[in-house]
């Protein structure tokens, strides 16, 4: 088992197994029948997970596993303009990518199992198609994670985008869903453009895109090192890297749904729920965080980018939490919550507490997958109704779903012994203590914004839980809801347990935890050592203020906010809406039982949150992104295209005239400038 070559050959197998599953299911799946399709897809995932375990044993033993690296993929011109440098097909597993590897294959496997039951209403062809895309997605995601160069990561990056696009539009009959796919497409293309700019800039600076070589290339260099060769000769390293990393970060914003490119993620909920759980919560959307962590040594040399990452993350966290307040669609609540949690992760990697960002990525994968799958189970029970106002009282009808949902909700809320508390608060405490060379205050700002967002998270998640499961059923459908199949609830329980157990990763460095204190941070330390060295000076570490008070504040905020939600939706405050209704006859008309809560909610939210957030949402989402990018630009382009098509009117002589005039212009230009 500890033979490295086994692990090495396993690396490519990891990608090829799901790919093979996708190929078989894609080409002949519809003739195989559902059982065989599921067998192939899950078989591929089980095999991939086992290979991942084999590889991970090596990583745990302290060995990094590389495969390929010498096999050339293609050559590009080096920065000196002469030598060609090679981009290789190489895979690379260290503690960072190994951790993600386990998350992707593990959570991926669970979601595959869940989907066999969830998608069972599809016909044979649709079923095969679904698992084809799902397997293809896993293969692409593994390429993204395992690739040892930015270019190979880009291969996976594009692949997951394509699969996401295909899966969002899975139920294609709906025009609205087709539109949602388009939104995802446009924002992701903006992101890809940024990514490419980053890759090309890095290629022009260093002549390589390999992570290991890049790390070696910047080793010992400071922000002020002057570049002597290549397209950026004369720039300082810091300035060139700021350009490169900002490009990469634009890519991250697109993929990981950060301001202002977050808009596609809530719409991506049009896809089947397991897809939302796998792609739009646990894996793909965290790719941006992974990329920043992966290239931490580059970002560390660009303090301005670090500050940007941190601020964008913090703003997104608050902003998305605010929007989640007034969502009534259970999947939309979870989607905005994902955007908000991704913001937390970016605070982490932007403030230089890389391990915390990655840890939150892992714990978030567990509890958010659990939440989404729980939502899927609820939707099954509710006959595809997603409006939480129509639910209520499901706790007796769906006990397993309810328990797991509650555990996951507590985890994301940050109730103390669960994993979410530790990962989130490691981020916030780290941000508070961080120092940014470009904008010193950024860590403090991020801390404040993050704490507000955490309070918001606790409230809206609890609201979502109470509205869904507590009280009495508010509709006929809710009265007749039923628990889902064991294949689904079993997966839910595994994920719920994981989101509790993951707390072991994040225990803070207190005496009582002994060697478990910050175990994940220590484990990840080799990966980020170089970046931390740049940030805090060679050999120096971040000053270890392990103060208790940030943890206490965070705990208090989560509890208070959760308690408020409980009070409003379950406890004594429930009567307030009714009293208000009697006091203001205008409300009395709506005094029907099931609406009370929402009236108070509206009263509460409209005053304090909704107006602000709604305006912002309106401006950013509806006008800027949807209006300009998704609709506006294509519409303008199409309009102008139609205008220019008038020239293509089929008349040969008009064509000849165009050519003649253009030739005259060309001659005028070359004569005007060339003959003198």
């Amino acid at each position, binding site marked *: 088992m500890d033979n490295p070559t086994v692990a090495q050959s396993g690396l490519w197998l990891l990608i090829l197994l799901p790919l093979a599953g996708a190929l078989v299911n*894609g*080409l*002949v799946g*519809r003739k195989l029948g559902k059982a065989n399709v599921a067998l192939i897809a899950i078989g591929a995932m089980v095999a991939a997970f086992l290979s991942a375990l084999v590889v991970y044993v090596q990583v745990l033993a302290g060995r990094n596993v590389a495969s390929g690296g010498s096999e050339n*993929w*293609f*050559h*590009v*011109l080096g920065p000196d*303009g*002469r030598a*060609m440098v090679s981009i290789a*097909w190489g895979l690379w597993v260290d503690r960072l990518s190994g951790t993600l590897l386990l998350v992707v294959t593990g959570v991926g496997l669970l979601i595959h199992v869940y989907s066999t039951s969830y998608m069972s209403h599809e016909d044979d062809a649709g079923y095969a*198609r679904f698992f084809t895309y799902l397997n293809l997605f896993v293969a692409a995601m593994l390429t993204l994670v395992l690739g040892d160069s930015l*270019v190979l990561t*880009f*291969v996976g990056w*594009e692949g997951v985008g*394509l699969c996401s696009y*295909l899966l969002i*539009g899975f139920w*294609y009959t709906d025009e609205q869903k*087709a539109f949602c796919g388009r939104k995802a*497409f*446009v924002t992701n*293309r*903006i992101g*890809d*453009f940024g990514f*490419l*700019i980053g890759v*090309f800039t890095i*290629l*022009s600076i260093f002549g390589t895109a390999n992570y290991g070589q890049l790390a070696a290339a910047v080793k010992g260099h400071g922000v002020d090192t002057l570049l002597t060769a*290549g*397209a950026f000769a004369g720039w300082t390293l810091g300035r060139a890297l700021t350009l490169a990393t900002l490009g990469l970060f634009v890519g991250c914003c697109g993929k990981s749904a950060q301001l202002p490119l977050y808009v596609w993620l809530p719409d991506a909920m049009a896809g089947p729920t397991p897809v939302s759980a796998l792609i739009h919560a646990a894996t793909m959307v965290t790719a941006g965080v992974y990329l920043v962590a992966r290239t931490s040594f580059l970002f560390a040399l660009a303090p301005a980018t670090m500050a940007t990452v941190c601020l964008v993350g913090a703003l997104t966290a608050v902003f998305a939490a605010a929007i989640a307040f007034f969502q009534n669609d259970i999947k939309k609540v979870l989607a905005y919550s994902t955007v908000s949690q991704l913001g937390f992760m970016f605070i982490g990697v932007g403030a230089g507490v890389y391990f915390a960002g990655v840890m939150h990525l892992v714990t978030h994968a567990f509890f958010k997958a659990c939440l989404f799958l729980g939502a899927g189970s609820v939707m099954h029970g509710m006959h595809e109704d997603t409006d939480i106002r129509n639910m209520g009282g499901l706790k007796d009808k769906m006990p397993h779903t309810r328990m797991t949902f509650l555990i996951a909700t507590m985890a994301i809320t940050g109730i103390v012994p669960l994993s979410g508390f530790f990962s989130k608060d490691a981020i916030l405490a780290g941000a508070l203590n961080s120092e940014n060379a470009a904008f010193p205050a950024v860590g403090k700002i991020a801390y404040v914004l993050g704490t507000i967002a955490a309070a918001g998270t606790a409230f809206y998640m609890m609201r979502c839980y109470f509205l869904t499961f507590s009280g009495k059923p508010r509709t006929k459908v809710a009265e007749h809801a039923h628990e889902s199949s064991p294949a689904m609830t079993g997966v839910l329980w595994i994920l719920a347990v994981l989101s509790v157990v993951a707390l072991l990763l994040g225990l803070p460095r207190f005496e009582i935890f002994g060697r478990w204190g910050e175990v994940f941070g220590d484990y990840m330390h080799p990966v980020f050592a170089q970046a931390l060295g740049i940030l805090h000076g060679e050999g120096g570490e971040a000053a270890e203020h392990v103060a208790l008070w940030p943890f206490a504040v965070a705990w208090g905020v989560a509890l208070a906010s959760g308690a408020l939600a409980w009070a409003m939706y379950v406890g004594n405050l429930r009567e307030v809406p009714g009293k208000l209704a009697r006091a203001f006859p205008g409300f009395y008309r709506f005094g029907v039982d099931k609406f009370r809560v929402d009236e108070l909610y509206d009263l509460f939210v409209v005053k304090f949150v909704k107006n602000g957030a709604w305006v912002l949402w309106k401006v950013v989402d509806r006008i800027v992104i949807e209006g300009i990018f998704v609709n506006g630009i294509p519409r303008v*382009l*199409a309009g*102008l*295209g139609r205008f*220019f098509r008038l*020239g*293509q009117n*089929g008349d*040969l002589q008009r*064509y*000849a005239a*165009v*050519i003649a005039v*253009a*030739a005259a212009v*060309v*001659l005028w*230009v*070359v*004569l*005007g*400038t*060339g*003959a003198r």
Partner: protein
Amino acid sequence: MNFPTQDFAALAPVGILSGGALILLLSEVFLASTRRGYQASLTVLFSILAAVAAAGGGSPGVIFNGQATVDAFSTFVTVIVCAGLALSALVGAGWLRARQAERGEFYALALFGASGMALLGSATDLLFAFISIEVMSISTYALAAYIRRGKKPAEAAFKYFILGSFSSALLLYGTALVYGAAGSTLFAEIGRAQGPLLVVGLGLVAVGLSFKVAAVPFHVWTPDVYEGAPTPVTAFMAAGVKTAAFAVLTRLALVAFQATPASAANSFAWVLAALALVSMLFGNWLALTQRSVKRMLAYSSIAHAGYLLVGVVAAAAAGAREAALSSILFYLASYTATVVGAFAVVAVLERRGRSLDEEPADAWDLERFAGLGRKRPGLAFAMAVFMVSLAGVPPTAGFIGKLLVFQAAISAHAYGLAVVGMLTSALGAYYYLRVVVYMYMRPAEDREIGLISPAIQVALALAVVAVIVLGVGPETVSKLARAAAAIGM
């Protein structure tokens, strides 16, 4: 005076191609048989022979007193052209048989055209280039009119002919002016001349070649001709004509860049950069609004001409010249495989009228691709691969090609072009992936599965393999391209 045996031997690939054409002409009239299946196989055989002869023939260098140069560059171009010819012939076999139009003349004309293209790849003389262009063009004019039923093929051929000879006339007049300025039409001599006459002449020649590569604003013929011509012919034009025209444009551009006055070289670089810019913008832009996939591919070929022109512009900078040239060659190879494959799928799905004479209005509409993922997963997969490659998504040939071209442009400090190239290819993905969306996300309109023959299947399989191999393991080909880029001009 000795017989220039070696010079003729260096042109053996061209000899094989035109000899093959003659053989096919004679066999068509002498073997009066209803079974014409052998013709396509024979064409493939001749193109393989020619490619082998080109690859095995070494690089004798300058022949015919400098009028042509057979080097690694021309060999690379010849092999691409032969590959494009072989694939198009396979597509043509099934397509023509279904329309009861399979004749030896089709293949003979294609072979003649390919011999013109191969000559063009080695041309280092304006007159030689002009005659090669005419050999290539006259064959393709005739091929475009090959189907005599319906209004569209004749119209496409007519437009192509009139505008093509119009641009040839411009090119020839430019050649005459260059001749007047330099006293010779050899590229090597042109570089030593100067003066306004030379600049105007080279400008007119550049216009003529821009027409052949379909760069905006000399692209006006492309959509109409690509749409109206028989689909296998369109494939051949998109692959072969573009490759050959870019080969000679590249060689000539290097000459023009090296022309003595630096300001003239600069202004040519400016003109090419402007053409690249508008080609990328307008090609992608106008493709957005198309519903006919065939026409969309026509606009897309204009856009790709723009990307290739970025490479030509990058070749102007001395530092990045080799990288730029090799990126152009690699791009041409990957584009040939991709575009022939894409047109092959279009040929399969083309809607046919109830009778042979009927021309359905929406023969290539996007709807034809709806539900293909369910009806024919293999065909849909192939088309998806081609579209993804045209969009430049990794790990396909198109991605590597674009990456190499843009990287060369950045090395040549042409940042603007590189950025516009990246932006427009982001835009371009929209209409390519729309085809994928139709194939996988729209219900089928009918059960009809189009025309598919073993020959087309072979062509599709080869094209898919080529696109993936060039994307996953491009090193073999790109090493050859780098070797070919070291042309000693």
